[in-house]
Every structure is written in structure tokens, then in C-alpha cells.
């Protein structure tokens, strides 16, 4: 179909220019590749053998990916939210709420919910893995209902939810230090070969599912339709409120998965500090990946690139010895530069 039949010989520069102005993700992908090359160069090749170089290089990468799995999963949900023209500021608070809920369920001390009911061992863990996502889904639905039925702007609804969720969680966890059973830690720390890659695997599986949902399913396409022209979507028989409700519910669900991963990595969660700024990191990743804050245009793959770019940047700053306090300045700049780069046709 289309122009595929036309055989046109292009030199590299013409091909690059064409891709740059026609494929919205190309500029961001190019930037990512350049940063990875830079990172590889900085890491150096000062090793005895290729094998030891590769091991060091890949270890560095596994660390980067694992440390950012949580943000990445949240950013995927945020992409959908932003694509409907909304925003979710409550993800950090939802993270601690669902994380605290998981710890309360699992606590092997005297106050553990499941323990009190006589449920322990594997069954407790399985129940937690069902109940916590359900709780996240519920919290998300609550926000979704406020936005749709209550017609409260998403910014306000989630700003309010952010304060409520964290404050209630902090109060209910005051002076309480739940201990999570060690078996639970396997969820994140199970080694494959000798590598701690489980969080990365969860992330990639979720990214693949989200990618498929956004490209091929009714729900995924309805998200774009709603964000692109809500009125037209509604007049085309799409239940706009249902789509939005499901997007916020899914966001809550994904955040709870991130919470499970975080709790299972270190066995606890800092209720006051965890998840602070998570919403901004997630929004930044989505925006760097080409998602429009106006709704409609958004790319799951772009968000994956976005997370990688921000993580590689952090890694580079580390390698260069940039003071940690300055790292946010670079992060801020890369968000702005990424959006500048994506302004079609302005570069060449």
C-alpha cells in the first residue's frame, strides 16, 4: 500500500532527515543511542578480556534497569493517563498507601492482618499479591470517579488524593514497624543465573502488555480518541467516562505493583519519604518519550525510551562525578531539550 512500492535511493543523510521529520520517536531513540555510546565510552575498555568488559558493562546496565523498574512501571500508566488529557499527581502517595497495605497484610509480628487470621506462608503471600493490586485498583477507581462523575479536574482530584492518601497512611503506620516474611523478598530478589533481574522482567512484561493494549485493543485506541477529541469520541458512541475511569484504575493497579516490587526489594518502605517526586519522574519520562500533555498523542515505546534516557543520564552524571544535588538540574534540562527536539522540522 501507499508509497512502499516506490523505490527511492537515499543516502544516509536523506534517510536520517526523512526519519527525523516523519517518525516522532526517532529523535528520542537517536538521543538514547548517543547517550548509551557515550556511557560505554566513559565506562572505558580497560579490561583484560572482552568477557570481563562485557560483564562489567552489563552489570552496570542491570543495576540501572532494576533501580528504575518502579518508576518505569508507573510511567507506563502515567502515559495512558496523560493521553486521555489527564494527569495523576497521586502516584507517590498511592505507592506508600499500597506498600503500607502490603506490609500490614504480611507482618509476621503481632499485628499482621493475615497472621491474625491464621494465614501464613505461601498462602499469605499469594493473598497479598491479589489484595494489594486490588487495593491499588480501588484507589485509582476512586480518583477516576472523582474525575468523571464528580467532574473535578484531574489535577485537583489527584492533588487532593495525594495529600489524603499519604497523610492517612502515615497516621496509620505511626510507631508501627511491620516485618515482612523473608519468602516475600524472593519476588524481587530471586536470582536468575546469578543475576537479580526480576524487577526488570516485570517491567518488560508490563511494557509489552501496555504496548499491545495501546496499539491493538479497543481500550487502548479509545484512550487516544478521548484524548484527541473528547466530543467526537463521545458522539461516536464511546463511553468517555468509562475509558477515563479505567485509565485511573489501571494507574492505581500499576502503582501497587511498583509498591510490591519496592517492598520486596528491601523488606520495608519509608512511608514519609518513599514515592516523593515519583509523579514528576513519571510525567518527565512520558513527556521525554513524546507524549503530549494536551492528550491524544502518546507512545508506550516512547515512555520506555524516556525512562532509559533519564536513567542513563543519571548514570552518566554519576560516572562524571557531578554532585548529586545538581542531577535534577540535568534531568530538568533533558525534559525541555527532548520536547524541543520533538518539535517537528525545526531542527533541519
Amino acid at each position, binding site marked *: 500500500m501507499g508509497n512502499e512500492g516506490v523505490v527511492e535511493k537515499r543516502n544516509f543523510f536523506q534517510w536520517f532527515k526523512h526519519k527525523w521529520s516523519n517518525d516522532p520517536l526517532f529523535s528520542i531513540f537517536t538521543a538514547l543511542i548517543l547517550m548509551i555510546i557515550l556511557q560505554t565510552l566513559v565506562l572505558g575498555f580497560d579490561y583484560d578480556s572482552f568477557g570481563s568488559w562485557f560483564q562489567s558493562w552489563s552489570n552496570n546496565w542491570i543495576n540501572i534497569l532494576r533501580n528504575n523498574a518502579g518508576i518505569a512501571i508507573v510511567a507506563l500508566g502515567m502515559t495512558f493517563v496523560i493521553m486521555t488529557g489527564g494527569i495523576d499527581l497521586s502516584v507517590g502517595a498511592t505507592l506508600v498507601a499500597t506498600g503500607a497495605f502490603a506490609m500490614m497484610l504480611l507482618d509476621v509480628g503481632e499485628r499482621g492482618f493475615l497472621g491474625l487470621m491464621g494465614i501464613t506462608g505461601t498462602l499469605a503471600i499469594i493473598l497479598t499479591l491479589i489484595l494489594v493490586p486490588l487495593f491499588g485498583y480501588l484507589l485509582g477507581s476512586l480518583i477516576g470517579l472523582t474525575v468523571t462523575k464528580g467532574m473535578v479536574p484531574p489535577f485537583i482530584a489527584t492533588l487532593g488524593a495525594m495529600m489524603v492518601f499519604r497523610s492517612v497512611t502515615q497516621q496509620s503506620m505511626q510507631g508501627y514497624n511491620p516485618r515482612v516474611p523473608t519468602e516475600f523478598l524472593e519476588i524481587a530478589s530471586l536470582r536468575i543465573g546469578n543475576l537479580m533481574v526480576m524487577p526488570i522482567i516485570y517491567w518488560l512484561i508490563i511494557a509489552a502488555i501496555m504496548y499491545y493494549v495501546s496499539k491493538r485493543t*479497543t481500550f487502548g*485506541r479509545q484512550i487516544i*480518541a478521548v*484524548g484527541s477529541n473528547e466530543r467526537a469520541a463521545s458522539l461516536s458512541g464511546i463511553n468517555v467516562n468509562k475509558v477515563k475511569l479505567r485509565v485511573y484504575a489501571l494507574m492505581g493497579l500499576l502503582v501497587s505493583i511498583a509498591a510490591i516490587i519496592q517492598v520486596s526489594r528491601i523488606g520495608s518502605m519509608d512511608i514519609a519519604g518513599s514515592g516523593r517526586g515519583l509523579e514528576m519522574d513519571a510525567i518527565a519520562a512520558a513527556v521525554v518519550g513524546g507524549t503530549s500533555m494536551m492528550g491524544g498523542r502518546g507512545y508506550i515505546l516512547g515512555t520506555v525510551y524516556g525512562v532509559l534516557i533519564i536513567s542513563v543520564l543519571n548514570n552518566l552524571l554519576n560516572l562524571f562525578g557531578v554532585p548529586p544535588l545538581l542531577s535534577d538540574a540535568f534531568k530538568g534540562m533533558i525534559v525541555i531539550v527532548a520536547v524541543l527536539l520533538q518539535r517537528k522540522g525545526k531542527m533541519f
Partner: protein
Amino acid sequence: MKIEMTNIRKSFGSNDVLKDVSLTINGGEIYALLGENGAGKSTLMNILGGIYKPDQGSISVDGKEVKFTSPIESQEAGIAFIHQELNLINDLPIYENMFLGREPKTKSGSLDLEKMIRDTEEIFERMNIDLDPKKEVNELDSSYKQIVEICRAMMANASIIIMDEPTTSLTDTEIERVFDMMQTLKEHNVGLIFISHKLSEVMQVCNRYAVLRDGNLVSEGDVKNVTIADLARYMVGYDVRTEPLARKRDLGEEVLRVEGLTYNHVFKDINFSIREGEVVGFTGLLGDGRSELFQSIFGANDISSGTIYVHGKKVTSNSTTQAIKNGIAYLPRNRKENAIIPDMDILENSSITTWAKFSNKGIINYAHHKKVFQEQRDLLRIKMVDLTDNISKLSGGNQQKVVLAKWLATDPKILVLDNPTQGVDVGAKEDIYDIILKLADENIAVIVLSSEAHEIIRVCDRSLVMYQGRIQGELVEKEMTDHHIMSLATGGELT
């Protein structure tokens, strides 16, 4: 002032949009620039407005050659471009809008509000306009917004004003108001370029005309020497018919009946019944409530009381999803706001209404939609390159056909077309009329909402004329004349 555009050529990529066009526009005349969508009108005006640069050719103002590299330079030369989407800030008062970007300051550096108000009053007086400069723009109707923008151009000393389809969204009284304003401008020796698809308006207000077709100037002259039919023929290149389209009418059972339908003061006590294979027109002036009525029947708006029957069975219509299931399809007016999903391709825009219906466990069946659309593409004669091209790549008429395709995909029993030929050129209009009759022959009940009487006369078997939310009267076949429709639409009775 006199503007000459000589041998203008412009192409975008391999597409030659203007092929050697020359025009002369004088002060004190109203000059109609006509042509179908894609004929090159907008490009030509954008060149005059300094937005595009011509590939070849020259522009001269009062005999002196000029080269515009930006809209500002064109404005400084005395050319004002009033776009279809008006450039006013709704939340500011009129006087501040009049001085946007060139606000007068007092010595202390604050805004000189008094001068702004005084100057605005002065120009309104000069133009014979009764309007309070302190009113906020969002309190104005579209015609006054138009007028404010024209006055702003006058204040900036414009001597040629380009008006791009100024009357599309106006009611008849508002149109008259704008026409009065245009006459005043003419008397002030301002030259007006009037871009419009409404040929009757052109006959009414313009002295000269030019017709573009496929980037060529095909005809130019005095309006008094031509008829509407002539102009239409120049635009499409063949004869355009205005007589009613004959067809064999084979009406089936009743499909839609509405009893006592009311929604606040928007529409009141509406009763009608429509049969299979019938084409029924709903007409009236803008704001008569017909769009709202059918949006309510389609479940997009509320109703306060009344009942809707589909195939004799009472239905509740509280969501568009439900209405589609009931076999009702509604093609809305204002395609851009209400029908087009700008971030999606042609195929998706044509199938959005049936994604859920044909999906398998939530996965969209693109193969099915492709097949359905390809059949419709032939039926509707949609001109396009690739299914995965963005919808915005199509011309207005073809976009409208894609929107129509998405409704035909739902296999409707009742098809409501609200202003179906809005922003569509003459050729595509005829295509749409043909399609309407073809659908009626397939036993679909088609309801056409339009404020253009000739359109109702051309395709409908009968028409219901609305006035202030009520059905004022019904006209059947031969009774449907411009005169009858107009007298009912303005609240009169048939004599």
C-alpha cells in the same frame, strides 16, 4: 488602493497549487474569490497575507512592487486577513481586543484605558455600529465578533480586508449585520476580498468575482453579468443541478416515532414519525433547536419529557452507545469539533463506532474494518492514498465522507445527517446527495438537518420546519419551496 497579483505560482512538493494566477483588487469594491476546496483560494490569500512566499510572480500595491516575508509586513502594507477562526481574546473587553499588541500607554507606563475606549467609540461611530466598547467579547454573538475584528483592522489602517468564509457560522440576521458592515467599508473606499461557498450571498453583496479551479483562474468579471448557475459551473467545471432529485419512493414501515419530546426551552413538544426509506428534512434558522433535538434522540443530550419509539418499541436514549445499538446514527455538524479524531488515521476514523462491536476479547479487528471501509470507499468515492494516512491529509469533502463511512459501518436503520455538506465543495456535495438517495433506496430512514433550503428541496421527500424549538410546519414534495420554508422558519404560517 489597488493591489495587483501577477503570475503567481506556488507548489507544495509535487503539488502545483497555483499555476500562474493574476488578480487585481481595487479599493471600494467587494471582490468574491470563489472555488472548490483545494482550488487554491487559501494559498493565494495566504500569499497576499504574507504567510506563504510565492515561487514565482509579484505583488504590487498602488503600482509599487512589494515582497512580504511575514504577516506583519503585509499588515503594514494595509492588508488585513480575517480568518475563519477569529483572533479575539474572549475574556477581555472589546476595547482591549482592539489594541492587542499595540496598547497605548500613559506616561507612567500603565495602559491608557481611556484612550482605548475613546478610540474604539470613535471607530464604532464612524462605522455606524451600536456597540459598547466595554462589553466583554464572550458576550458578543459571532457577527459582532466579526465586526469587532473588522474594526480592529480598520483601526490599523487596513485598506484591503480579506474575509475567509465570514458567514459560515452566522444566522440570517447576523449575516445581514455583517453585510451592512461590508457596505459601509465599501463606502469608506476599503477593498474587500470575500471568500465564500454561498453563491447567493455573492450575488447579493459582491461587485466583482474571480473563480479558481485547480490552481487556475478560470473566470473573472462583474457579478451583474453572471448567474448563480454560471458561477457554480465555473467552480466545478460542469453544470450543477438545483432541481429536486427524482427517485422512486418505496416507503416501508415506521422506524422512528417521537412523542411530546421536550428539553427545557431548547425544544418543546416535538412529535413526528418517519418510515423506512424516507428522506426527511429538518430545517429552520440557526438556533431553532433541531441539532439539540437529534442529539437528544441520539443520547448525547438530555430530555426532560417525551418518548422515543424505534420500530414501534419504546427506547431509552441515555447514551450514544445505546442509541447506536438501537440503530440510530448521528453525523454531527461542525466536523472538526465533533467528528474528526485528529490524532488518528483514516481507517481508525472510519471504524471507531464499531471497534467494540467487532472486537474479539477487546482486541480490535482491523482486518474486518479494512474490508468494510474498502467497500465504502468505493461506494462513497473517497479520494485518498493510504488507509494509514492521517485524516487531516484529506480535503474537507473527503473527511466528511470518512465520517459518513463510520456511521454506515454501524449498519443504521435511522441515519441523521446534521449539516452534512458543511465546508464541502460543490462536487462533493452532489456526491453526498447521491449517497443519501442511495441509502434511502436501501430502506434506511435518512434525516437531513440543514439551514440551506435548496439542499432540503433537492434531496428530501418532505421537510419539517422548526422555529424556536417547535415544529412550525410540515411541507411535502411540491410544497417545499424557498418561500414556504423561509416563512415557516421565521415563525410565519403558510398562506
